């Protein structure tokens, strides 16, 4: 089945809006103006003003010379975007897929929607008449491609519904501007006497490309349906979304929990059938007073286990403020990944990192305390102790190199080395004793020094000479001297505790 698009062109978008707001403007000519290079320029003119040949881009003084009683209002630059967004959301009643065509238009993907209104003609009539009753003058056209719909809406004279695969016949008699070309190309086409699309369609593609660039070919292909055009819908369509309206507003946590369970059951059953698992989900609660409360969860592994997902949400239900009550619940699975059923069976039996229970446990931790509370370390190729390990990005990230155990390393490392007072014979003997937290430790045995140089490409600073020492009580420490003795700036630190 071919696609069907509807183009809505709001010719007098902003002036229509002003007329809607102030009914006295209905029968008088008025323009919107904004300053530009020290002059006031006309940025929009209503129908009556345009019938007096007052057009956009004119200087206000000239316009006033044509009609002395002309009403001049200040333009609001952000108005178009806001209006179009509002209208696009309103148009979702006709199709879920509505996009904004910048400046003054809306594109509706009406594929499979028109029959609900009886026919395409009735569908289009309904849109136009309803918008008209709102006060907007709109030209609407329907075609298989966005390009053709745009062309007919802007330049078509009659027959605003182009039948399937009739794009080229519909475009033949229209001027080349209808192809959404740049201003220069259009000018050049007219100078060459190519004043109709019909003249261009038959031409050799290479010749067109040479004279007008690739853009014209692209636009032509888009209009004729040889090339797809991508647009961004106003409301992205969530493929995994479920709604649950409630008759009475819900105010209790138990009620919210029941709603959530029902929604999860529907979503998870569907995910299971499609062999997919959920990674990120949002649970939205629309309150009676129009506000929306939402909670979000994420999982480490794609999951369709609704008990697990419910547990993750359950930790956050208490953050929802029902206020006067919630009358609509929506559950959206924003990120979905495929799950292989065999893999899942494996998880349940293994006791490694692939264990399903473990990943569910970690989901609960990260849901409650944030993902940054969970650490898994991998070896990093650095000798500098603080850099000798790195955070794993995922639970099943593999080692890129082996863990080293050729050098003694303390089991507990201080996050920041602490200064100690040390008595040590020069030049490179281990300390004889040191004072840490007010207690004097006499060193009886020692290993070292192990010199670890600064990685100058990462950080500037002095090297460290590490000593592995044991005091007379048998307690083992990792001390280092930063810098050479000869530097006079050397300092002693304690950096860790051995087992």
């Amino acid at each position, binding site marked *: 089945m071919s696609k069907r698009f509807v183009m809505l062109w709001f010719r007098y978008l902003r002036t229509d809006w002003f007329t809607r707001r102030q009914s006295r403007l209905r029968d008088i000519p008025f323009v919107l103006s904004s300053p530009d290079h020290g002059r006031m320029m006309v940025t929009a003119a209503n129908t009556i003003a345009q019938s007096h040949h007052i057009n956009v881009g004119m200087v206000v003084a000239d316009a006033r010379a044509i009609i002395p009683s002309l009403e001049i209002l200040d333009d609001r630059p952000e108005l178009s975007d806001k209006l179009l967004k509002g209208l696009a959301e309103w148009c979702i009643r006709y199709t879920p897929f509505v996009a904004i065509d910048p400046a003054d238009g809306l594109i509706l993907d009406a594929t499979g929607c028109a029959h609900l209104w009886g026919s395409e003609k009735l569908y289009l009539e309904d849109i136009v008449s309803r918008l008209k009753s709102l006060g907007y003058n709109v030209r609407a056209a329907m075609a298989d491609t966005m390009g053709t719909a745009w062309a007919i809406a802007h330049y078509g004279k009659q027959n605003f519904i182009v039948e399937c695969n009739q794009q080229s016949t519909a475009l033949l008699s229209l001027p080349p501007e209808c192809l959404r070309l740049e201003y220069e190309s259009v000018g050049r086409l007219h100078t060459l006497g190519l004043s109709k699309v019909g003249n261009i369609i038959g031409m050799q593609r290479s010749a067109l490309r040479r004279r007008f660039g690739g853009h014209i070919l692209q636009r032509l292909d888009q209009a004729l349906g040889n090339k797809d055009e991508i647009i961004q819908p106003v409301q992205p369509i969530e493929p995994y979304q479920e709604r649950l309206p409630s008759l009475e507003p819900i105010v209790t946590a138990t009620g919210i929990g029941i709603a959530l369970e029902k929604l999860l059951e529907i979503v998870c059953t569907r995910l299971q059938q499609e062999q997919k698992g959920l990674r990120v989900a949002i649970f939205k609660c629309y309150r009676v007073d129009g506000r929306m409360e939402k909670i979000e969860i994420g999982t480490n592994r794609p999951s369709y286990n609704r008990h697990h997902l419910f547990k993750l949400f359950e930790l956050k239900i208490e953050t929802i403020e029902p206020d006067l009550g919630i009358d609509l619940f929506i559950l959206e699975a924003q990120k979905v990944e495929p799950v292989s059923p065999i893999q899942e069976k494996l998880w349940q039996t293994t*006791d490694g990192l692939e264990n399903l229970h473990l990943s569910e446990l970690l989901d609960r931790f990260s849901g409650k305390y944030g993902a940054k509370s969970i650490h898994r370390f991998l070896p990093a190729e650095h000798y500098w102790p603080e850099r000798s390990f790195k955070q794993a990005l995922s639970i099943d990230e593999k080692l890129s190199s082996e863990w080293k155990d050729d050098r003694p390393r303390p089991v507990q490392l201080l996050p920041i080395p602490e200064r100690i007072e040390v008595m040590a014979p020069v030049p490179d003997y281990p300390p004889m004793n040191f004072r840490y937290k007010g207690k004097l430790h006499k060193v009886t045995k020692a290993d070292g020094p192990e010199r670890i140089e600064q990685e100058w490409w990462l950080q500037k600073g002095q090297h460290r000479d590490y000593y592995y020492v044991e005091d007379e009580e048998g307690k083992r420490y990792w001390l280092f001297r930063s810098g050479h003795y000869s530097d006079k700036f050397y300092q002693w630190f304690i950096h860790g505790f051995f087992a």
Partner: protein
Amino acid sequence: MLKTKSRMLLSKADIIAQLQKSILPLQGFKYSAQNTSVGLGLIEKAFPNYSFPLGAIHEFICADTESAAATDGFIAGVLSSLMHKSGVSLWISSSQKIFAPSLKCFGIQPDKIIFVNVQNQKDVLWCVEEALKCEGIAAVIGEMNDLNFTVSRRFQLAVEQSRVTGFIIRNNPRQLNTTASIARWQITSLSSISHDDMPGISFPRWNVELLKVRNGKPGSWEIEWSGRKFIHITHIVPLPREQQRKTG
């Protein structure tokens, strides 16, 4: 007459032994067919059934940072045989003190340990309990200061279901109260002794004290981690006088 008396005595002893046997499972001990040795040798004899109790809560008392480090080393040594090849452990604490690369020396792949660091003690308790309920983990290590009886009871109930082994490290506890844990350990460092009078520091050596064992015999042992396994120190080594008195 004498014979019957001895028979009666024998049967009495039998009855007691049998009763004890039937009490043990009620108290959370479970016989398992597989070998549950964790390489602790003699120390395992102190426990009921002469095996290191898995699926139970072990409590470690540490007075200071140094003994906490010794405890970490001891636990890591036990973990290495608990985790075998594929096991995963969770280390839950309120701050990251463990230097992960060092665990490799105790025969553990440090990437098989997941560290969870949460803000306060209350959150640690929650995390430990949730982790202990999770099947398929080799062990859960939790660092906390105080452990009251109720919490320890909850831990014990959790592991009875999941058969996860729990190690609770109590740093500087305010009081040594009664808990439901199966054993209370205290690990302190001992001077390392190199066997061939080489200079420098040899393998880490600890004094392992079992302060309390439920249905077992408390005791004190000296062991050494030789890089791959625990070795019992049986011979009397010349220790400084002061230390000799201390370790008894």
